[in-house]
């Protein structure tokens, strides 16, 4: 097919561009683009690259702070953690590819996010993953989950980064559209951070890494009849990852970075060579000229169009200082990777592509980068819900506890994280299964606490509050291990933004995230937007996953959720009113997803979090755990399970089931050998003495007792039984 022929309005529609967008392209060029040029426009103006539906609302997020070195706009956020070290992190979705080919989709998601992090000069030290699957009874759930988990493990384990945390939930709204969000955290030196902005007219553009194949050339064109002359040559929609090559690419890039030969570097992620070259030249306010005939390809006969739009994995584009090409080639040669000059930086403000002696593209960069349409899409606020009354307790308290602990969302995710190498590196101080994961920096004693959180049920019921809660829960998870929350990354997973009620969810969640992040002093430094998560008109639950990183000055005093000594006093931090709306208890025991979710007050979160953090750091408490889904009793059970120790408590006054399982925010459970010292410090933070640790059962005064062993069987049993059942 001739990819240099003039494009038509019909081609534009097939590439997913709206009629007015096509008009806009023609107007900005003052001519009709050819097919290759149109392809470049279509990916640069895609939701993924241009953020055209979300940008207006993303602008409202707090993104700066005294520690922020690079906020959104780079490959990953960069935050100063002292002594010349910086933490580099980002979260990204690979939802659609994972639904089509769960193993490779998830694997390449992990590969992509790690490249984002090491492109900036950081060595990845931890991965996390936030997963949402359909209802367990849906026929595809099991195989999708098996494939996704194997893929995440397959890539991260081989590459050699510990996967230390994440979250996993199930709901029928994800039946046709699972969510696979991967987060990577790396460490760099503050004086050796690399960005994408080109400089130096005449500098060489080098192509690094794996060869280019026909992987994942964008979806819209797949359907195009012109591409299917030969049935066997059907373009694979799904990229295949090779962690082995990526590991070599990491080592080679870090080695090249250390030489000082690099001006700018950018990984080829979504939209491959197109977005990397356009962004590098565009950010530098320069131009770029490439000879596509020099690009290493895996197959013969690839067109310029295919080379530009390929999403083959494990590739990088780098701009070198003059005369340093041989040095780069020697390093990449040692690692047996391609390193080829494919073009130069120019002063034209244009991207010019040659292929086989023919100019296949000559476009101004300005409209590609700055004239993508920005939509102020109509939106309607989500109507508020009524408060859910507690009503009468339908069954014994401890029966409900067992059900919650063995419910799909409440059950242990051990089956998942045991498939992830969470120990490689020898720096995993808090393993998966508790609150935030804690990973030590190589030379210690510093460490990072990392978590991801989102409660989509809250977001559905009340987007603003749901957005706030996601940030607040991250804040609590970090505080519970004694870490100072530093900054956030977010992955905004929503349905079709062209529907006003969905757009309302986006606007609301972003408002909530922004408000809470501002109060809690945790700017958003990177993120990713994934829209159109729908199948046959059924949207996913609004799922703005928040990832957070906190700093521990000394990992030796990291907090733990494990209750492992008898005789400790158990205390509840925060107010309990027994709020059941949109709770796990309401879903699992009362059989309703209705009701308003619990209010979130970021000021309260700040005060309570600061209090708990100081207790952990001063070693006044032996264990701490934040209260989230399932409320007080579930949190206590998790502490008992983590430490293999029983406890006896009396519930505060109120309807027992609402007090035990209500999800009032801003709360923690702490265990201490020095209750008086804790009380002396509380300075107005509500503190309630609940009971003591000890024995091998969990006892609630007036409600009986259940052995820790029985709780463990319930908690650990569900997921393996589910996966193993035929």
């Amino acid at each position: 097919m001739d990819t240099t022929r003039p494009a038509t309005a019909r081609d534009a529609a097939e590439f997913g561009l709206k009629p007015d967008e096509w008009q806009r392209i023609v107007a900005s060029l003052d001519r009709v683009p050819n097919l290759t040029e149109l392809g470049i426009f279509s990916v640069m103006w895609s939701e993924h690259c241009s953020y055209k539906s979300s940008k207006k609302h993303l602008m409202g997020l707090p993104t700066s702070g005294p520690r922020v070195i690079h906020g959104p706009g780079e490959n990953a956020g960069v935050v100063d953690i002292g002594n010349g070290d910086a933490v580099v992190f980002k979260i990204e979705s690979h939802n659609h590819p994972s639904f089509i080919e769960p193993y490779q989709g998830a694997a390449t998601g992990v590969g992509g996010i790690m490249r984002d992090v090491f492109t900036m000069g950081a060595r990845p030290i931890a991965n996390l993953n936030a997963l949402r699957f359909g209802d367990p009874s849906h026929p595809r759930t099991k195989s999708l989950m098996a494939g996704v988990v194997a893929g995440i493990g397959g890539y991260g384990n081989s590459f050699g980064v510990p996967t230390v945390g994440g979250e996993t939930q199930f709901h029928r709204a994800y039946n046709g559209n699972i969510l696979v969000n991967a987060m990577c955290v790396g460490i760099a030196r503050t004086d050796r951070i690399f960005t994408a902005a080109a400089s130096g007219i005449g500098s060489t553009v080098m192509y690094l890494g794996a060869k280019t194949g026909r992987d994942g050339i964008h979806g819209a064109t797949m359907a195009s009849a012109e591409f299917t002359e030969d049935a066997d040559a059907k373009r694979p929609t799904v990229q295949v990852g090779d962690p082995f090559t990526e590991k070599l690419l990491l080592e080679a890039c870090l080695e090249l970075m250390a030489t000082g030969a690099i001006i700018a570097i950018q990984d080829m992620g979504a939209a491959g060579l197109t977005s990397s070259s356009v962004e590098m030249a565009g950010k530098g306010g320069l131009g770029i000229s490439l000879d596509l005939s020099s690009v290493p390809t895996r197959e013969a006969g690839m067109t310029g169009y295919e080379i530009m739009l390929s999403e083959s994995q494990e590739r990088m584009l780098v701009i070198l200082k003059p005369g340093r090409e041989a040095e780069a080639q020697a390093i990449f040669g040692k690692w047996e990777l391609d390193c080829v000059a494919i073009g130069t930086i120019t002063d034209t403000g244009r991207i010019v592509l040659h292929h086989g002696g023919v100019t296949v593209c000559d476009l101004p960069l300005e409209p590609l980068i700055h004239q993508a349409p920005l939509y102020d899409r109509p939106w309607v606020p989500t109507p508020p819900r009524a408060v859910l009354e507690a009503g009468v307790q339908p069954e014994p308290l401890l029966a409900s506890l067992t059900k919650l602990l063995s419910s799909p969302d409440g059950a242990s995710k051990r089956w998942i994280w045991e498939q992830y190498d969470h120990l490689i590196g020898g720096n995993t101080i808090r393993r998966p299964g508790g609150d935030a994961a804690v990973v030590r920096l190589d030379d210690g004693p510093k460490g990072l606490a990392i978590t991801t959180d989102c409660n989509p049920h809250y977001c559905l019921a009340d987007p603003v509050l749901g957005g706030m809660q996601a940030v607040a829960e991250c804040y609590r998870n970090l505080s519970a291990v004694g870490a100072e929350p530093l900054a956030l990354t977010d992955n905004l997973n929503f349905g079709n933004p062209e529907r006003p009620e969905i757009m309302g969810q986006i606007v609301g969640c972003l408002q909530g995230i922004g408000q809470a992040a501002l109060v809690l002093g945790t700017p958003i430094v990177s993120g990713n937007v994934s829209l159109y998560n729908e199948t046959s008109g059924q949207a996913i639950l609004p799922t703005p996953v928040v990832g957070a990183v906190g700093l521990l000055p000394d990992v030796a005093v990291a907090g733990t959720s494990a209750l492992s000594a008898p005789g400790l006093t158990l205390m509840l931090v925060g107010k309990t009113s027994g709020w059941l709306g949109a709770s796990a208890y309401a879903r699992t025991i009362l059989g309703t997803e209705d009701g308003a979710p619990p209010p979130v007050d970021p000021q309260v979160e700040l005060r309570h979090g600061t209090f708990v953090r100081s207790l952990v750091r001063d070693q006044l408490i032996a264990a701490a755990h934040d209260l989230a889904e399932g409320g007080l009793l579930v949190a206590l059970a998790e502490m008992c399970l983590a430490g293999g120790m029983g406890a006896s408590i009396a519930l505060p006054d109120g309807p027992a089931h609402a007090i035990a399982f209500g999800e009032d925010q801003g709360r923690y459970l702490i265990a201490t050998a020095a209750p008086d010292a804790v009380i002396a410090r509380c300075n107005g933070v509500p503190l309630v003495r609940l009971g003591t640790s000890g024995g091998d059962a969990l006892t609630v005064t007036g409600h009986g007792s259940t052995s820790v062993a029985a709780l463990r069987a319930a908690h650990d049993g569900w997921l393996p039984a589910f996966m193993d059942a035929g």
Partner: protein
Amino acid sequence: MRAAIVVFPGTNRERDAARALARAGATPVMVWHKDTDLPPADLIVLPGGFAFGDYLRTGAIAAHSPVMREVVAAAGRGVLVLGMCNGFQILCEAGLLPGVLMRNTSLKFVCRSVTLEVAATDTPFTRRYTVGQTLDVPVAHGEGNWQGDDATVAALEAGNRIIFRYADARTVNGSLGEIAGSCSVNRRVLGLMPHPENAVDPLTGSTDGAALFQAAVEAA
């Protein structure tokens, strides 16, 4: 004591190994697989990872790389050789230890702490343990399912060459006889699937692996 850590493309636990060795008082040096001249060393370590992508068969491509000829020669001279995880797989493929490591019977990668029983202490690596002692050490592998024919197992047993066995209630990977590690006839080549190098630091959990490195350092 000089320890040479052999690094293949795809090796990824070399730094964990180096740290464990340094804690035990050794001076570790990394040796790139293309450097066929091994530096003089008292101990050669093949660390964990997925050398050459673990493609084709785990350990297979690495076992046939040039540096392995040097390792085999050094082992022949009595130099201590320790293979952990991928290192064990490579030693088996290279024929320095018997048997093969196949996919875990669960078909899943498994990373968790296991209970490891020390079955023999008359090796330079296990002298600081007692027979029957149990260790808390993590595993992290997808292909640790040790298999060998009856004659191989009989020979290992007769020579008291099974050094570690899994002693967990649930099987870790399906290994025949719960074999987790074995040694050569001269007892100076040890391979094991678990990661003692990730059990040397109280902050990360167990320190039960430290004695293995200490013993090796003393012996070398």
